[in-house]
């Protein structure tokens, strides 16, 4: 059984922060396929349809028949640990800082053997479930967990290096004056967050949501207006060094596209909050987070973007919003590059229409903010990079993966979610 992770002690102010270190990131192009799978929590390995055998490590052709149409096929990940070691000395600086580090050889039921990072509960001879997990370099590795889950499994120190579990971490919700912000604050408290900084613009504007928020456990309201550079600078000045997980919930949403909208004032407001707000956060919260990406068990861990699935393809009824989210998606990709090697993961949560006032003309299914919060947190606990929430988002995402041009046409024709 795993034992619960105690609350990490407060930082010793006389200790130098650890530099940002990451495990080796270099992979072959095929190896990066594994990272792409890990980013959404999938496990597939190459499979030869003629030989009916899986192949690993990634290859260009089946090592039995040399046919080059290996297909990435789902695999259970179940298997047995056949050997383990604890690395106690290594020239790799990232691991050197974390020894002893346990790895093992896992014989998968479907045939292949993998070297895997080991959960503390896994010993030689044990049945395990190996899964792909992004490590702090952002690339995929195998991680073997106990086949049967146990209560504090996610508290394992090695596993926490791969995940972004909010437990004992300090979270900033950039715009808590949203249904999602409030839902997140509640769910994060349940998930064992150490503290929740709830960013609120224009504290002079009181409303019921704000009054609720201030009564939540662990929530501290902080002045943060994403449209105001000074406000973001000041907030980052005060809290930037304490934010382990930043969740950007800002959303300025108005229906409409471009031809039928009069003027640009609304569009500017939308871009100011959604797009330029993101940039302000990146400029002021990015540096302190990047500097703390490897600083122990409660280091800076994740930057989370709440994205509409409209970021993938425009939904003309919400055309300007789609454009904002397309920009956000692109910026999140840039941010991943800028955070590379720091240990801070950029997580995108894609959802369909939320159950909020701006979607009250849309038919269900819509995503309840509480569900979004729950799945976002589950994704952080699992260590995902892309989280897709709700039936609409899953539908659009799969159609986009299948054929983006077809999806574009269907959405443009008003096909929307029914296609």
């Amino acid at each position, binding site marked *: 059984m795993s034992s619960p992770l105690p609350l990490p002690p407060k930082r010793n102010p006389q200790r130098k922060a650890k530099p940002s270190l990451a495990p080796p990131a270099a992979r072959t192009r095929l190896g990066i396929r594994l990272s792409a799978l890990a980013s959404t929590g999938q496990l597939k390995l190459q499979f030869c349809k003629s030989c009916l055998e899986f192949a690993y490590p990634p290859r260009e052709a089946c090592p039995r028949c040399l046919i080059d149409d290996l297909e990435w096929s789902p695999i259970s990940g179940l298997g047995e640990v056949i050997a383990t070691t604890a690395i106690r000395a290594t020239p790799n600086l990232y691991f050197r800082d974390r020894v002893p580090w346990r790895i093992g050889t896992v014989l998968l039921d479907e045939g292949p053997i993998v070297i895997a990072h080991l959960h503390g509960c896994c010993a030689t001879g044990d049945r395990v479930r190996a899964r792909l997990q992004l490590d702090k370099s952002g690339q995929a590795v195998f991680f073997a967990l106990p086949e049967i889950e146990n209560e504090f499994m996610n508290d394992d120190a090695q596993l926490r290096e791969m995940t972004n579990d909010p437990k004992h971490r300090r979270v900033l919700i950039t715009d808590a004056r949203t249904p999602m912000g409030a839902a997140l604050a509640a769910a994060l408290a349940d998930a064992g967050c150490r503290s929740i900084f709830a960013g609120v613009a224009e504290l*002079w*504007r*009181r409303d019921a949501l704000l009054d609720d928020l201030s009564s939540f456990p662990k929530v501290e309201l902080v*002045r943060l207006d994403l449209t105001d550079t000074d*406000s973001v600078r000041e907030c980052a000045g005060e809290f930037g060094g304490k934010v382990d997980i930043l969740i950007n919930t800002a959303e300025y949403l108005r229906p409409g596209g471009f031809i039928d909208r009069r003027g640009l004032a609304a569009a500017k407001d939308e871009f100011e909050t959604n797009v330029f707000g993101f940039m302000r956060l990146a400029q002021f919260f990015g540096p302190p987070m990047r500097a703390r990406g490897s600083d122990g068990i409660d280091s800076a861990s994740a930057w989370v973007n709440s994205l509409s699935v409209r970021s993938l393809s425009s939904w003309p009824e919400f055309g300007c919003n789609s454009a904002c989210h397309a920009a956000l998606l692109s910026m999140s990709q840039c941010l991943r590059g800028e955070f590379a090697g720091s240990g801070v993961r950029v997580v995108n949560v894609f959802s369909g229409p939320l159950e909020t006032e701006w979607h009250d003309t849309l038919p269900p299914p819509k995503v309840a903010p509480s569900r979004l919060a729950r799945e976002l947190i589950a994704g952080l606990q699992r260590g995902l990079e892309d989280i897709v929430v709700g039936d609409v988002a899953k539908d659009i995402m799969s159609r986009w993966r299948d054929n983006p041009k077809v999806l574009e046409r269907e959405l443009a024709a008003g096909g929307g979610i029914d296609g």
Partner: protein
Amino acid sequence: MDDILSRLAKGLASGLIEIVDLTHTLDADFPVMILPPEFGQCARFRIEEVSCYDERGPAWKWNNFSCGEHTGTHFDAPSHWVSGKDLPYGSVDTVPLGNLVAPACVIDCSAEAEQNEDYLMDVDKIREFESAHGEIQRGSWVLMRTDWSQKKGSEYINLREDGAHSPGPNADAVRFLVDERDIIGLGTETVGTDAGQAFHANPPYPAHFYLHGAGKCGLQCLSGLDRLPAKGSIIFAAPLKIRNGTGSPLRVLALMNGSGNIPCGS
């Protein structure tokens, strides 16, 4: 013998004429009028650094700022309201210069506003002022003192689920000032010339409706009215000369008789 401007200059230099700043600092977090979300919104004051003696401009610092025409301490031109949309000289670039420098009457409603956040100044209150200080002369600014400018943040905007709660004039009072006294305009310490609940009046927002419909102007978010005499001050309220502008943030200054002890411009 000194000409009048020389005497003004001497008065300023000696402190016998005092300058009072009636303006709030333009600050990103200063409250603005809140409209229902489906309407267009007033842009907040924002500032972006262009350079700060750095690689973006080694020897100089400068900023870009942005805001709405009705952000911070600001001027409302007649064209701001639908009732004044077709008037000549209705925009800030064409408002007659005489409107921009003019005497002010300050009607002290601070006691009433303290008692009642929804206080509405009525004709009786104006007549009471006139009986104490003489009739409001044609071509004056009328400034409604409520001490509201001393409130901060949420108390200032005082928003509740049924809207904002703040004092203002009632419809009759505005019509009286416009029709009977032919003022230049009405100035308030609150976020608008109308009371917080004026949407529910008839007509809605009577101050805006009657003032601007008659070519009169508005000044909002004033501060420092408690320092002005009831009568005898001169207001300098010149908006930016924005083509077809409906309003503008501005610096509002008042001249008043001083003691001579206070240096000019304090």
